[in-house]
C-alpha cells in the first residue's frame, strides 16, 4: 500500500518544482498508472518513491510506515523496471541477474532459468547482453525487477521498445503479478498500455495530477452516450444509449439488417487526456 500526500520535489539548481503537491494512493493488488507526456514528472515521482531522489516535501507512507523511516530493507520489498535497458554489456544475461541476485536474501529468489523462460529469453541466458536486441534487454530489465519476489513494483514505460507480441506477454505477466497481490505503479505515455493494464490512472501534466479515475469510467464519462451499429452491408447508424431497448429506429435497424458490429461510442483514453489536460500525449 502506497499513500502519497502533497508530494513536491524540486531538482537541485532547478527554478521551478518538478512535482507540485501530488496526492494519490495505490492499494495492494492494484495496478496504478501515471499517464502523461515526457517531462510531466512521472519518472521523478517514481524515483522519489524508490528513494533514489531525496529532498522531497510531503508525506509518503509505504505499508503504513513513512518512507523516510524505511532502511535498506525497503529495497527487498520493491522491484524497479527502469525505462531504459541498463545492464553490463560484457556480462551474459545470467551473470547480470546473478550479480544483482546476490544482494537479496536467497529464500526470496525466484529460479533464474525459469524467469528467462517466462519472457522467452531461455536461449539467450548465456549470451552476452551486448548481443541482445533492445527488446531482449527490456525483458531482462523486467525479470530483474521481479526476481526477488518484491511486493511493490515500479515499472517505467514497461512496454517501451517491445514488439507487440512481447508487449502483450509483459502486460500478461504484470496482470499475473497483480493477481498475486503485488502493488504495481506504472508510468507511461502509452495510452494503450495504461488502458489495458491500469485499474486507475492519474493524468499528470507539468508536475500536477489533473484527474485520477478508472480508465473505463473516464472513457465513458468523456464519450458520447451512443452506440454505433454497422450492418454487413456497410450501413452505419448511431443511436442514443438511453432507452435503447425501446428505441424503435434501433429495433427496426437490427431487425432488418444482419449486424457486423455494435459498439458504444466511448472516448479513447487519449481523447480523454486531451479533454482533461488540453495537451496531447507526445513522447
Amino acid at each position, binding site marked *: 500500500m502506497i499513500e502519497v500526500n502533497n508530494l513536491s520535489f524540486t531538482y537541485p539548481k532547478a527554478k521551478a518544482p518538478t512535482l507540485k503537491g501530488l496526492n494519490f494512493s495505490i492499494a495492494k493488488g492494484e495496478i496504478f498508472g501515471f499517464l502523461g507526456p515526457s517531462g510531466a514528472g512521472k519518472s521523478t515521482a517514481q524515483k522519489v518513491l524508490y528513494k*533514489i531522489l531525496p529532498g522531497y516535501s510531503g508525506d509518503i507512507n509505504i505499508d503504513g510506515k513513512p518512507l523516510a523511516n524505511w532502511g535498506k530493507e525497503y*529495497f*527487498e520489498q520493491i522491484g*524497479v523496471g527502469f525505462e531504459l535497458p541498463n*545492464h553490463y554489456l*560484457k*556480462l551474459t544475461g545470467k551473470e547480470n541477474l546473478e550479480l544483482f541476485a546476490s544482494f537479496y536474501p536467497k529464500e526470496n529468489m525466484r529460479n533464474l532459468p525459469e524467469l528467462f523462460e517466462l519472457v522467452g529469453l531461455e536461449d539467450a541466458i548465456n549470451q552476452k547482453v551486448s548481443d541482445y536486441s533492445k527488446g531482449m534487454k527490456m525483458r531482462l530489465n523486467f525479470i530483474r525487477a521481479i526476481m526477488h519476489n518484491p511486493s511493490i513494483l515500479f515499472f517505467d514505460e514497461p512496454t517501451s521498445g517491445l514488439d507487440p507480441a512481447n508487449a502483450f506477454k509483459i502486460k500478461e505477466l504484470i496482470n499475473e503479478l497483480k493477481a498475486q497481490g503485488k502493488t504495481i505503479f506504472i508510468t507511461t505515455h502509452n495510452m494503450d498500455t495504461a488502458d489495458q493494464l491500469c485499474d486507475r490512472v492519474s493524468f499528470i501534466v507539468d508536475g500536477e495530477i489533473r484527474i485520477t479515475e478508472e480508465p473505463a469510467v473516464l472513457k465513458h464519462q468523456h464519450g458520447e452516450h451512443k452506440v454505433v451499429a454497422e450492418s454487413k452491408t456497410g450501413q452505419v447508424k448511431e443511436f442514443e444509449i438511453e432507452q435503447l431497448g425501446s428505441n424503435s429506429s434501433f429495433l427496426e435497424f437490427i431487425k432488418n439488417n444482419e449486424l457486423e458490429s455494435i459498439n458504444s461510442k466511448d472516448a479513447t483514453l487519449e481523447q480523454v487526456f486531451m479533454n482533461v489536460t488540453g495537451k496531447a500525449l507526445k513522447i
Partner: protein
Amino acid sequence: MNQLLKVAITDFKLVFRDPSLRIFLVLPALILVVILIALPALVEAYPVVEEYVPIVLMGGMTQAPTMFGFIYCVVFIDEKDTQVAKMYGVVPVSKKGFVVYRLLFPFVFASLVTWLMLVVQPFYELPMASIALLSFITGLVTPIMALSVAVFSKNKMEGMTWYKIINLLVTLPLAAFFIPKFGEAFGIIPTYWMFKGLNDLIASSSILVPALVAFAFSIVIIAVLVRRHAIVHFRD
C-alpha cells in the same frame, strides 16, 4: 563476504573482457621487470643514475595503485554510461559501504604489488614491517584515483582528462626531491608523504610521521570522495 566476492569476481570479468583494460593487468609485471632488470642494468651502465634510484622507486611505488585506480574509474564511468549504476541505487545495500568494499580488492592488489616491488628491489635492504606499512598506505592511492576521476567525470572523455590531471597531481610531489628547499610545499598532496616515507626509509630514518600524515590525509580524502560518489553515482 559472499556478496563481496561476487562483486569482485564480476569486476574482474568486466576488466578482463574489455581489451582496452585487460592490457593494464600486465603492468605490475612490467614494473617488476623495470625494477629488477632494467634499472640495475641502467645503474651499471651509467653510475650517475644511482643517485636517482630512490626517486625511481618512489615513482614505481605509485604505479600499481594508479593503474588499479584507473581501471576502476573506467568501470565506474562505464556503469554511469550504461546506467547500470542506477540499479545499485535500488538494491538492499548501504551505498557508502558498497563503494568502500568494492574498492577493497583493488586496494589490496595495489598494496601487494607495491609491497612486492619494494621487497624485490635489489638496491636497499629495507625493514619488512616498514615496507608493509608503506605499501598499505600507498595502496590508498587506488580508491583516491578511482573515486576522484569517477566523481568529476560525466563520461569517458572527461574521465581521461581527469585521469591525466589526477595522475599528474599524484606524481607531482616527486619534484620535491629535486628542489628540497621548497620540498614541503608539496605536502598538500598526500603522495608527498608517501614518497617522503620511502625516502626516510632508505635513509634509515623513522617513517612514522610521514606514514601517519599520509594515512590520515588519504582517509579524509577517501571519506569525502566516498560520500560524494554515493550521492552522484547511483542517480541519473
